[in-house]
Each structure stands twice: as C-alpha cells, then as structure tokens.
C-alpha cells in the first residue's frame, strides 16, 4: 500500500504502462505489414487464379486437371496446390496430401508436406475451396509456410518482449522509488531535525549538482537565514536581559540605602528614580526601534530641509561638543531637500552626532556635510576618533552591539539600531567607512518622489 502511494513508484508504473502500450503498437504494426497484408495479397492472387480456372472450365475435367498439374509443376516462389474432384466426389487430380470434407467454408489452412527424395518439407497451404458449375469441387492454394513461420515467431517474441518489459519496468520503478525516496528521506530527516530544535541541521549535498542538490542548496540557504535570525533574536534578548541587570542592581542598591532607618538619604531615592528612568528609556528605545522596523510607526512624510535640520542639531549638541573640546564643522551647501519625517530625521542626525561626540577625543573635529549623490542627497557625518575596526564595522547597528572602544562610554548600543531603522523607513542607504582616522557614516537619500511614498503607505496600513 505504501509503495502504491509513493509518487516515484506511481510515476515509474505509469511510464512502464505507456512503454508497454507503445511496444504493443510496434508489434501490431509489424504484424499488419509483414503478415496480414501479404496474406491478403496471396488470397487475392488465389481468388484471381481460381476465377480464371473456373471461367475456363467447360465440363472437361481432364483438360482442367492438366492445366492444374502444369501450374503445380511450374517453378514459383509460392508453390501451387490444387484438388479437383468430379461431381461424384472422385479425385481427378491433386497434390495435397489430405483435405477436409466439403464443408462450405471458403478458406482453409492445410498441412501440405512435400516428400521429395525421401525428405519431408513442411509446407502450409492457404487454400480456396469452391464448387464448379457442374458440381465438381476445385481447391486452389498457395504455399504460405514462410508467412506462417514469421507469424509464429512474432507471436512468441511478443510474449517474451512484453514479459521482459514489464519485468524491467517493475525493477525500474522499484529502483526509482528507492533512489528518489532516499534523497527525499534526507530532506525530510533534516526537516525533522530542525523541527526537533536542532537548527544546525542541513540537507546533505552529494555533489552531483542535480535537481535534488539544487533543492538542498536552496533549503540550506533558507535554514542558514532562519538560524541567523533566531540567533539574532536570542542575542538581542540575552543583551536586553544583560543590559537590564546593571541598572536593576544599582536600583536595588539605591533603594536598600534609602530604606528607612539605615542612614536613609533622599539622594539615594533620586538615584533609584534615575536608574528606573534609564531602564524605562531602554525599553522605550527597544520598542521604538521595533515599531519603526515593523512599519507600525506612522511617519509623517514631508519635504525636509536637511541643512536646517543639521543646523538645529549642531545648535543642540554644540555646547556638549564644546565641553568635550571637539569642534563641529558643517558644510551643507544649498538647501538640500529630502522627503522624510522631520522628527525621525532629527533623531537620526542627533544619534549620529551624539555618537561622534562620544568617540572623538579632545581636540578632534566632527564634520557634517551634505553632497549631491547622483540625483540623490547624501548626508555625511565623520569624526576624527579612533574609528571602528573592520571586523566590527558590519556589526554596527546591531541591537546592543558596542565596539571595544564603547565599553567605557555611556549608552547601551541602540543609537545606531535606531538610525538603521530610520534609514530603512526612508528607503535610504547607510554606509560606514574608515575615515582614517575616525568613522564616516554616509546616508544616501533617494531623490524626492522616488522615496517615501511606498513607506508611508506601509506605515499607515500597518498602523493600529
């Protein structure tokens, strides 16, 4: 039952059936062309001969017998046979060894073995039996031994051929079932491993580059992607838990110190409140990033003057930079307009600026520039800090990822994640580059009209 349900087996069985049918067609055609048609031709020839003899018969049996014997003696590819009896049934002439009693049938196949020089030659005669006008009986026939032999040979060959075909087809079906089943089992085995929780499971590839290998490569790519995604989620939730531990323990410490009776101090309570605020802003940031990433943030797209935005950001962060001894330089050129959400774009510039100030040592310079990139607009923020090692470059923007240089700096590693989310929402692209020294962040906005419109729709439809 299981075998009958197998797709590959049913496929092979169907194929075998079709092959048998085509074999039968070939054999049938051969039979028609080499047996049936020649036999009909012989029959037509015999009928014509019999007609000629009958037409020439004037009641003179002896004369007819002579003509018949002359025909039998004549050299011919197909030897002629005959029987002539008078109306009383006495044989006048024949070269047939035996014949059936008159039965009214027209055609007979008769054994017509010929003895010559003591040897016996097997012959089969196709004979037409007809009466003559005076009641005499005339049988005219020809030797069809060759056709008969051929027919017999074809018959038995067909039997063997069909039997062999069915046997081979069955064997083929079983082989195909086994071979395909083995490859499919490998795929479903891997799937079951993954279902069972082992995300490292991969479909084996046998290196032949066949259809199954291509399928396996695709499936493995999918599994790689799934594994990476799950790993990212796992890392992110681990990081959240990890990032929460420090503020939570500080919160605990402050609350313990502020507990009544133990030299309680109001400032400890404020410390506790500060820590709770930090915790809250951490959660807010995580939620905000996922809201923007999942399109649930209803962005308000309008034309935004990037130069004015940068000027505002520089104004806001100017004192902070000055306190650190870092200078800010802006070169924004002629009013570059992009299509975007003003508040989110300000958040983006603020985060980049905040990072740059954090990682630029005293005496350094941060440059904010706008250039025209083809038809688009490119925002560049570069600092003269320690930069980011190449291996960390591609992890920038990963949630909670902090480079080695950031370990001492404030923050939790969400600033660039938010930047990335905002960049994606604006259909812009972000590139990090080693500015030697320092880091250069380039964000390219598509020309107005091309960007934003699709995203606005997304954001709206995804909204609560």
């Amino acid at each position: 039952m299981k075998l009958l349900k197998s797709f590959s087996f049913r496929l092979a069985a169907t194929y075998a059936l079709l092959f048998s049918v085509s074999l039968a067609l070939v054999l049938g055609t051969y039979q028609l062309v080499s047996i049936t048609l020649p036999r009909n031709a012989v029959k037509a020839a015999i009928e014509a001969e019999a007609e000629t003899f009958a037409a020439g018969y004037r009641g003179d049996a002896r004369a007819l017998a002579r003509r018949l014997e002359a025909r039998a003696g004549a050299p011919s590819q197909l030897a002629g046979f005959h029987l002539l009896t008078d109306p009383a049934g006495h044989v006048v002439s024949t070269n047939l060894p035996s014949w059936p009693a008159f039965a009214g049938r027209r055609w007979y196949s008769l054994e017509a073995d010929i003895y010559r020089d003591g040897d016996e030659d097997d012959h089969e005669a196709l004979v037409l039996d007809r009466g003559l006008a005076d009641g005499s009986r005339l049988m005219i026939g020809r030797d069809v031994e060759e056709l008969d032999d051929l027919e017999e040979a074809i018959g038995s060959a067909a039997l063997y051929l069909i039997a062999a075909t069915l046997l081979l087809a069955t064997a083929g079906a079983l082989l195909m079932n086994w071979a395909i089943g083995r490859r499919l089992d490998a795929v479903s085995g891997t799937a079951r491993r993954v279902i069972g929780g082992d995300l490292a499971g991969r479909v084996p590839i046998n290196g032949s580059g066949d259809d199954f290998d291509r399928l396996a490569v695709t499936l493995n790519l999918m599994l790689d992607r799934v594994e990476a995604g799950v790993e990212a989620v796992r890392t992110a939730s681990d990081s959240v838990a990890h990032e929460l531990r420090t503020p939570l323990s500080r919160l605990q410490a402050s609350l313990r110190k502020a507990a009544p009776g133990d030299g309680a101090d109001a400032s400890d309570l404020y410390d506790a409140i500060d820590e709770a605020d930090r915790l809250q802003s951490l959660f807010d940031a995580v939620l905000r990033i996922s809201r923007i990433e999942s399109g649930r943030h209803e962005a308000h797209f309008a034309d935004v003057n990037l130069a004015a935005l940068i000027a505002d950001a520089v104004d806001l962060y100017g004192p902070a930079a000055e306190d650190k001894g870092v200078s800010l330089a802006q070169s924004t050129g002629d009013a570059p307009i992009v299509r975007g959400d003003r508040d989110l774009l300000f958040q983006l510039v603020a985060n980049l600026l905040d990072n740059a100030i954090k990682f630029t040592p005293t005496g350094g310079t941060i440059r904010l520039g706008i250039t025209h990139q083809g038809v688009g607009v490119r925002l560049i923020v570069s600092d003269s800090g320690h930069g980011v090692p190449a291996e960390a470059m591609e992890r920038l923007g990963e949630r909670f990822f902090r480079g080695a240089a950031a370990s001492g700096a404030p923050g939790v590693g969400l600033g660039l994640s938010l930047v990335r989310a905002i960049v994606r929402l604006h259909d812009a692209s972000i590139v990090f580059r080693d500015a030697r020294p320092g880091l250069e962040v380039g964000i390219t906005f598509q020309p107005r009209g091309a960007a934003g419109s699709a995203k606005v729709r997304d954001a709206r439809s995804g909204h609560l």
Partner: protein
Amino acid sequence: MMHILLVEDDPRVAAYLCKGLEEEGHVVDLREDGRSGLLQASTERYDIILLDRMLPHVDGLKILQTLRATGDATPVLILSALGDVDERVKGLRAGGDDYLAKPVAISELLARVEALGRRGTLTEEVAELRVGALVVDRLGHAVTIEGRPVDLTAREYQILELLARHAGRVVTRSMLLEHVWNYHFDPQTNVIDQHLSRLRQKLALVSPVPLVHTVRGAGYMLRPGE
C-alpha cells in the same frame, strides 16, 4: 489650586496620579470610563482635563473631539501608554493641548499641568516678564537684570523665556526640547543640561544670586534670588 478632571480606568494609576496632584493642593475628580468622563466634562467646568487615551466605552480621543466640537476649550492633557511620537501628534491634532506617555513621572505631570493651567491667566501677548530683578522683554528679545543687559544667543533667550513664563514652576527637559527646539525626539544624553549651564554662566555674570535652579528628578526652575 486647580480643579482637575482625571479620566483614567486603571485604579492604581488613578490613585497614584490623584495622590500626586492632591499633594500639590489641586482638587481632582476621578471618572473611570469614557462615558461618565464625557458626561462629567460637559456638565462641570474644569481648569484642566487629564484624559487617558484608552478607555472603556468611549475612547479618549472621541471624548476630546466631542468636547472640542461643542466649543469647550478646557485644556486637555492626554495620557497614553502608546508613548510614540506619532501618537502624540495624533492626540494634539484631535485637539489635545499636551501629551504625556505612561508611565507618568509625577514631577513631569505637575510641571505640565501648571503650564497648561496658567495658560488661561498668562496671556501669550504679555510684552514683558518679570522674575525678581530679571526682566524679559518679549518684543525686543532682550534680557536685563537690574537694568543691566544679559548677552544671550537666540536659543538661550528662548530657554530663559520659557523658564520665565513658568517662573516658580518646574520646566522639564522634554518641555524644553519640545518648545525651544520644536522637535519630538529622544535625546540619548542630557544635551539640554549643557545649554542650561551656559545660560547660568551668562546670568551669573550679571546676577549676584543664582536664578536657574535644578530640580532633581524633574527639571529646571526659574526663581527670583533671595
């Protein structure tokens, strides 16, 4: 003292907010669902209405729209667990005067309630603000202390003006960001503090006593020197 209507369905949050407001001497009426909240708001006059965004029966924004449609201009502060910028914009568009995301810090709420409540009495057109010896000339955008001019940047002037408008009351950092920079965003660090310290330094050049005070856990306050 202000007469405040609070429409909030979470009893714990409501109790916390009531306690905080009452400690400041405000009188609070509490309604716990949208329908009775709307009824109460339309039958009695309040100085300010605190409206939860998500309410049983009638949504907070519906109440707000209904009030505004009937010509009721009572200042409304929307409270919401949906603490995102676009939610704030929605609330303000529906006719809200201010917006606070939950969980609400009492200090932030009090500062905003004060600011909203005073809006009725303090006209925006007042040409001059006086806080002790400090005078803010809103027409000339100039500041003097005991007649001596204080040299401020445009931004510093805006900060001081906001503080002066709410003199004696707390102005939170997010209020400063919203009103002075006019961006709704989340600064990762307290960038505002550096602006305030510059403002203080400039005021200290002229004023013998400190005028801008830090209120721990809340924000800043402008107070005449003793």
